[in-house]
Every structure is written in structure tokens, then in C-alpha cells.
């Protein structure tokens, strides 16, 4: 680079000009900002973005209106008079069956389900993945293959046997039972995630620790765990959104007093009794979607990484 500049300085103006012409056009091509191609690309993307945003907008707008305004107005119009009453009602007063204590109960149930499920499923799967990556034993791959293939089996096929197993254990219908179910069904993808991650770490680290006499758990806690924080965050994002959004397991494996938020939301909105209060319904819907949405917006690129990992199975 330096050399070139040095020689450049000694060239005559004429030589410079010929070189420039010989080298062909350089620098950025002058382009009109609003080329036809750009209009098509951005135009399409903006229309698509509006389509994706529309439901969110309608949800928010509806939840801030009073029922009289909803009955006469159109759903896209911004509220003439903003009211937070629907939100209060959705949180604290909406009825499911005989209970009228709102979605708050479902929210706290979901918290009580999600927190232990996320921790236990990640703990179990990370150790599994670690054993598979670094401490292979005979038959381990076979079990792992069954596990990954099992991820594709429709849940409906395995639900009833699990009901029986949980009943035998005495935890059917309890939060413990549901936590076990989430741990089971989170296992294939999480184990895969951790196995691939641990297998990608430099093997010398593991060997050196072995030479120093470290055992299975020492290496896991002292070396693997501190090195794998990003993958734990990805797993957490995956599990928090997945478990929070679950509906089927919540319905099947818990009693009504333990129903997670999604189940309670569905019961509130689709209940046949009483007058439909669309504003309350929409406020309740936003409240239920809020947790995964916050996780999504905060985690950004890691969320994409999580679903990419979750999506590319095998």
C-alpha cells in the first residue's frame, strides 16, 4: 500500500490520467435513490410489514376502547377516548367458569410452571448433551437417535401413556407433573443443541482437564458451564417462549386451578356465557402474549439463533 502511494506521487498528471482510464470506472456507481427496483423492493416490504403489524395494532387499539365505541366504530380507528378499564378487568375481574379473579391467576400459574420447567429441562438436557459429546458410552447414540426421532412423533400419540405414568407417580394434575412433561418434551431439541455445542468446543481443553485428574462433574461445572453461557441463553429463550405458549399440555396435565395463562385466556374469550367484551378479550390477549414478546424484543438476534437451532433438527 505504502509503495503504491509513493510511486503515485512521482507520476505525471498525464500518466495518472491514462492509468485511471485503463483501470476502468471505479468507485460507487452513481445510482438514483428511487430506482424502479428499489421502489418495488421497499414497497413490497413495507406492505408486508404493515400486514404483520396490523393485528398487533388492532389488538392494542381495541383494548383501549370502551364497548360502546367498539359497537359503532371500526376496528382500525384509533380510540377516541382512551380507557384502561379493559386491562384492569382482564387482569383482575374476567371470569372463567365460576372464578372471577381475572387472568392474574393464569399468569402466576404460568410463572410457577415456566420457571421450574425451564431450569430443570435445561439442567437435565445440558448434562445429557455433555455426556453425549464428551463421555460417550456404548448405546448412547442409539438412545439419542430415538430421542431425536421422537421429537417428530405427534404429542397426541404419547399423551395417554404419560397420563398413566404420572398417575402411577401420584403427580397427575399437579404442577410437578406438568414440569416433568415439559422436561420430557424439551429434551430432544435441547439435548441436540447442547451436544452440538459441547462437541464444537476444543477437545484439548477436555483432555487437559482429564490429565489433571478432573472427573465428569468437575469438568462440567468448572470448564463446560462457564464456557457455554451463550448457548444457555439460547436454550432459555427457546424454553421460556415454548413453555409459556404451551396450551395442549396445560389442558391435559393440570387441574383447572393450575391452568396456565394460555388455557385461561382461551376459556375467557371463548366462553359462551355473558356479553362478549371484545376490549377485555383483546387486553387479555395482549397480556398473555406480552411475556414471549418481551423475550423476543429483548433477545433479538439470539432468538433467531435459538429458533434456527430448534428448526434444524438432526
Amino acid at each position: 500500500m505504502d509503495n503504491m502511494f509513493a510511486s503515485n506521487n512521482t507520476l505525471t498528471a498525464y500518466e495518472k490520467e491514462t492509468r485511471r482510464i485503463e483501470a476502468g470506472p471505479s468507485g460507487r456507481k452513481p445510482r438514483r435513490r428511487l430506482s424502479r427496483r428499489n421502489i418495488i423492493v421497499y414497497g413490497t416490504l413495507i406492505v408486508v410489514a404493515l400486514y404483520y403489524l396490523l393485528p398487533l395494532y388492532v389488538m392494542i387499539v381495541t383494548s383501549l376502547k370502551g364497548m360502546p365505541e367498539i359497537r359503532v366504530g371500526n376496528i382500525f380507528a384509533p380510540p377516541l377516548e382512551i380507557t384502561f378499564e379493559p386491562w384492569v378487568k382482564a387482569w383482575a375481574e374476567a371470569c372463567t367458569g365460576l372464578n372471577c379473579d381475572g387472568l392474574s391467576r393464569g399468569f402466576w400459574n404460568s410463572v410457577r410452571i415456566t420457571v421450574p420447567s425451564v431450569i430443570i429441562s435445561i439442567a437435565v438436557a445440558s448434562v445429557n448433551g455433555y455426556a453425549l459429546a464428551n463421555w460417550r458410552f456404548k448405546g448412547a447414540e442409539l438412545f439419542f437417535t430415538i430421542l431425536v426421532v421422537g421429537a417428530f412423533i405427534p404429542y397426541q400419540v404419547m399423551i395417554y401413556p404419560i397420563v398413566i405414568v404420572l398417575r402411577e407417580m401420584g403427580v397427575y394434575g399437579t404442577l410437578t407433573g406438568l414440569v416433568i412433561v415439559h422436561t420430557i418434551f424439551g429434551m430432544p431439541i435441547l439435548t441436540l443443541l447442547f451436544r452440538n455445542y459441547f462437541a464444537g468446543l476444543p477437545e484439548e481443553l477436555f483432555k487437559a482437564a482429564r490429565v489433571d485428574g478432573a472427573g465428569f462433574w468437575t469438568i462440567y461445572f468448572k470448564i463446560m458451564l462457564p464456557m457455554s453461557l451463550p448457548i444457555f441463553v439460547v436454550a432459555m429463550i427457546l424454553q421460556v417462549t415454548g413453555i409459556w405458549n404451551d396450551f395442549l399440555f396445560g389442558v391435559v396435565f393440570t387441574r383447572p386451578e393450575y391452568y396456565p395463562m394460555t388455557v385461561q385466556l382461551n376459556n375467557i374469550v371463548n366462553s359462551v356465557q355473558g356479553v362478549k367484551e371484545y376490549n377485555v378479550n383483546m387486553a387479555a390477549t395482549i397480556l398473555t402474549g406480552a411475556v414471549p414478546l418481551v423475550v423476543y424484543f429483548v433477545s433479538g438476534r439470539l432468538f433467531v439463533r435459538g429458533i434456527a437451532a430448534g428448526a434444524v433438527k438432526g
Partner: protein
Amino acid sequence: MTALTRGSVRPNQWLRNLNAKIASIPMILTAVVIFLGGTIWTVVYSFTNSKLLPRLSFVGLDQYERLWAAPRWIISIQNLAVYGFFSLVFSLVIGFVLAALMDQKIRFENTFRTIMLYPFALSFIVTGLVWQWLLNPQFGIQSIVRSLGWTSFSFDPLYDADIVIYGILIAALWQGTGLVMCLMLAGLRGIDEDIWKAARVDGIPMWKTYVLIIIPMMRGVFITTLVIIASGIVKVYDLVVAQTSGGPGIASEVPAKYVYDYMFQAQNLGQGFAASTMMLITVAIIIVPWAYLEFGGGRKRG
């Protein structure tokens, strides 16, 4: 994998690597007892006449005959076929087109991606309820268009038995196309820049480069996406429950809902088991050829 664990020709086979074996107990139990055992259990009991409780009194293929004679099951299967076909086609086409647009070195790429992917973070219940509201004929899109002056405009898929499944399809596409876009975009980014340069030098128009060169090169991404979408389609349940509860009448029933209702509502376990076995077979039809192509075929070549 490692040299240390590979030297496993020692007499005390079972005690070797004991910690790893203990740590793998949850995985082994899940794989063998729940996934393998549970599946076999369900298939075996689908040949019994279990009602309220599972009982081992075999009745041959009775449950399956009853299943395929039930109008509700036939409608469920038809719905699944229609929903599955359009869902696959539209997800792949829309997802790819969006990814191609996003790949034009555009500005605000992150913003667009965030917007397209956020529905995927939401549950099917939330998705279903929002679209139930948007498609509400009294207040939703239909009434808006009518109030603009087109008074005969009719768009109420959730209340029309003939098109209700398309109403569910709209909601499903809203929720899921962002994911497909992301997978496709990752695939596009993996393609060598030189391919594009070569195509440009040869004067091949852009759309032709996509159709004839890029898409064939992305075969792997397409197949993976296809398998993900397809196995999601077979499981579709929450969305229907939230959006239509299977109605109007039984017009939007799906197999997963049939299974749940017969197992936990109608107390007719045998029917539920038979229906879930049919779901298993459907998934196997999708997965087995894929697994064979992806793994079995590869081994032969190698």
C-alpha cells in the same frame, strides 16, 4: 469420541464411565419409556375397545373401521389435507420471496426481520384469538370494507363452513411465514457470492438465476423447512381451538382435536388411540423418506 473413552475394552464394562451413564438416565428413560414405549403402547391399545379406561380386550381393526366411517374424522382429514397443502405452498413461496427481497442489501433489514418474525413468538392461542377478532363479520374486515361503500362485500370465513379452513390458514401463515423467511434467508446467505457474479457476467436475468441456480442449490434448506412445516401441520390443534373451536358445526375439525376430544371428553379411548395412530402414520410418511434421503442415502454414497 475422545481417545480416552474409546479405549473401552476393559473387563468392568458396566462401571466404566458410570457418571455419564447416571447423567444419561433421564434421556434413556425418556427415549425408551416415553417415546418408544408410549408409542408402542398407544398403537397396541388402538386395537382394543377401551372406553373409559384402557383395557386389553382386542377387537381387531374395529376402531379403525369406526374411525373411517365417522364423518367428523373424514372432515378432519380433508381439512388437514387442504390446510397442509396450502400452508406448505404459501409458506415456502412467501417465505422465499420475502427472503429474496431481504437479501437485496436493503437498509433497515433488522427492523423488517423483527416485524416479520414477532408473530412467531406468540402462541397459537393468541394468534387464533386475534384473527378471530379481525375476521369477525360484525366488526372486522368485512364491516370495514362494507362501510367504505361496497355493501355486498362478504368475507366471513369463520362463519362459513365451506371456507372456514382458509380463515385458519390466514392466521397460521401470519404466525409462521416469518420463520420460513428466516430459514430461507440463512440459506441465501450461505450461497457463494461468486455464483451471483458469474450469473451477472453471463447476463442471466435475476429471476432466472433464482429459479434455475439458487433454488436448486438450496435443496437442503428447502427440505429441512418442508419437514419442519409439515410436522407442525400434523400437530395443528391450539390454533383451531382458539379461533373456531372446530366450528361452525364440525367444519374446521382437525385430527389432533379429534384425538383430544375422544380421549379426554368423550371417554372413548380406543377411538382416540386409533386416531392418534393414524396421525403417527401420517408423520411417518413425511419423515421416513426424508430421513432415508438425508441419512440412509448418504451412508451408501460414503
